[in-house]
């Protein structure tokens, strides 16, 4: 297998955007190409992650993006894997470069949904669940994670204040990120007093619906050395699956696909959770970050809360989690999120993260899943 590197990364701001889905996907793609310092003609394939292109009247985004980049002859693949679309797409891009099919490829993730309103998004997002048992019985996505939260709070003696602290921490980080959707500091009280969406989760326990696009350029090591001096290497890539419905899981407070994907990625990278300097994890709801950091092996089961209380996951802690602000504050344009996490790791490891740079960050991890973790991908990167 070829060594795979990331030599360029770009993102639009996340939030309520006015431009079309195609325009924002192109803005991020052009930023990534500029960041890599290469021309589109060097790209041999495109991997485009998106879930609800239908909301902005454009599906089959790949050829549209390639054509507008001046490379209509280049093949592309459009990928949907719910909220995990970006990382799943990154994995396909990674695998094809690793296998030697291509020297350099573009992976762009995009979503444009905020113009549709809360009812449309709540309804359509529920189609990502195992619909017969979940969405089709009145469960929204906040509701599914609220069910995980209620089980977690009962099992591990955690409180709604603890959940709120995840939101406060990630908003503190997002405040330092010019591209974040919710760029404001909040307090535990703000979270507790916000409207209940699906008990026990309140509005500020939930990530926002966001528009946005992120893009990265992946290539083999020779291409990286020939074109750049400031790039990162992908040292681990893992994927996993879980029973699609929560009812199919023996332990509701664990997401099996995270454990499977993480195990594979750690094994490939030859590292353990202790070697990871910082991580971007899938905090679609505050409860998810607690569950993720346990399933990724940073903390024992049930101990993420104590680590959070001690500040270990803060920007200046021993294992900073979501330095970008995470889905909670940076925002969650679902097709772009997994790629956006790679953009953050790229920025962190190449000295472009500004005020939110983690101390002595050499190895970063991304963790992104679809639905309630029915599908998952984990990637590990190191600075070169």
């Amino acid at each position, binding site marked *: 297998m070829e060594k795979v590197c990331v030599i360029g990364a770009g993102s639009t701001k996340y939030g309520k955007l006015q431009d079309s889905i195609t325009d924002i996907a192109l803005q991020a793609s052009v930023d990534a190409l500029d960041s890599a310092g290469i021309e589109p003609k060097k790209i041999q394939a495109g991997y485009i992650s998106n879930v609800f292109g239908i909301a902005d009247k454009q599906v089959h985004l790949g050829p549209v993006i390639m054509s507008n980049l001046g490379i209509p002859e280049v093949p592309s693949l459009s990928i949907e894997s719910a909220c995990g679309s970006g990382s799943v797409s990154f994995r396909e891009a990674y695998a094809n470069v690793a296998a030697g099919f291509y020297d350099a490829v573009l992976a762009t993730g995009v979503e444009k949904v905020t113009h549709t309103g809360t009812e449309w998004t709540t309804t359509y997002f529920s189609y990502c669940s195992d619909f017969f*048992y979940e969405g*089709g*019985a*009145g469960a*929204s996505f906040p*509701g599914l994670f609220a069910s*995980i939260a209620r*089980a977690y709070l*009962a099992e591990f003696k955690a409180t709604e204040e603890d959940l709120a602290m995840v939101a406060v921490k990630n908003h503190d980080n997002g405040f330092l990120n010019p591209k974040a959707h919710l760029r404001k500091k909040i307090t535990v009280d703000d979270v507790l007093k916000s409207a209940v969406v699906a008990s026990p989760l309140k509005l500020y326990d939930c990530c926002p619906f966001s528009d946005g696009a992120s893009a990265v350029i992946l290539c083999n090591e020779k291409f990286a050395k020939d074109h750049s001096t400031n790039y990162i290497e992908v040292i681990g890539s893992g994927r996993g699956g879980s029973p699609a419905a929560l*009812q199919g899981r023996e332990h509701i407070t664990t997401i099996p696909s995270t454990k499977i994907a993480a195990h594979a990625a750690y094994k490939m990278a030859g590292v353990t959770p202790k070697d990871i300097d910082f991580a971007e994890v899938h905090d679609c709801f505050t409860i998810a970050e607690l569950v993720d950091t346990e399933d990724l092996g940073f903390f024992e089961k049930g101990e993420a809360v104590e680590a959070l209380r001690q500040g270990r996951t803060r920007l200046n802690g021993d294992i900073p989690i979501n330095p970008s602000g995470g889905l909670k504050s940076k925002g969650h344009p679902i097709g772009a999120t997994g790629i956006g996490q790679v953009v953050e790791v790229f920025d962190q490891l190449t000295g472009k993260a500004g005020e939110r740079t983690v101390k002595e960050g050499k190895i970063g991890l991304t963790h992104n899943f679809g639905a309630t973790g029915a599908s998952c991908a984990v990637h590990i990167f190191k600075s070169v």
Partner: protein
Amino acid sequence: MQPVQAAPSIYSKVYKLLAKEEFINNAKLGKVLARKCTKCGHLHLATTYFCQNCGNKTFENAIIEGMGAIVTYTIITVPPEGYEKYVPYAWVVMKLDKTDLRISGFMGGIKSPADLPLGMKSKMTGYDERGIIIEKL
């Protein structure tokens, strides 16, 4: 089991699967149609086509009483389309008695966590446009 008319539900249009219809017909009687693997005995909900334990493809039907205890739940205040008139309501996960199977569904009339302590004994009572219906005993 009494004969039941095919379910007049949106799912029968979406899933042209006999197993699903049979499952729904049982749910209407408060029963769970499970499939027991003829090779290893592992139990699944009827919508699985291969054994998740051993990969075997043949099953025998096992009709289980839809009785159990609530494992976890949420109370929805911001609902998906079609559920506005039911707010607030709960979506619950229930562990079925005498098996390791869990089933989830809609529970009306729940306004606050005080209405539904974890472990509450509950029962499947039907199936309609709200999905599988579960009620407190």
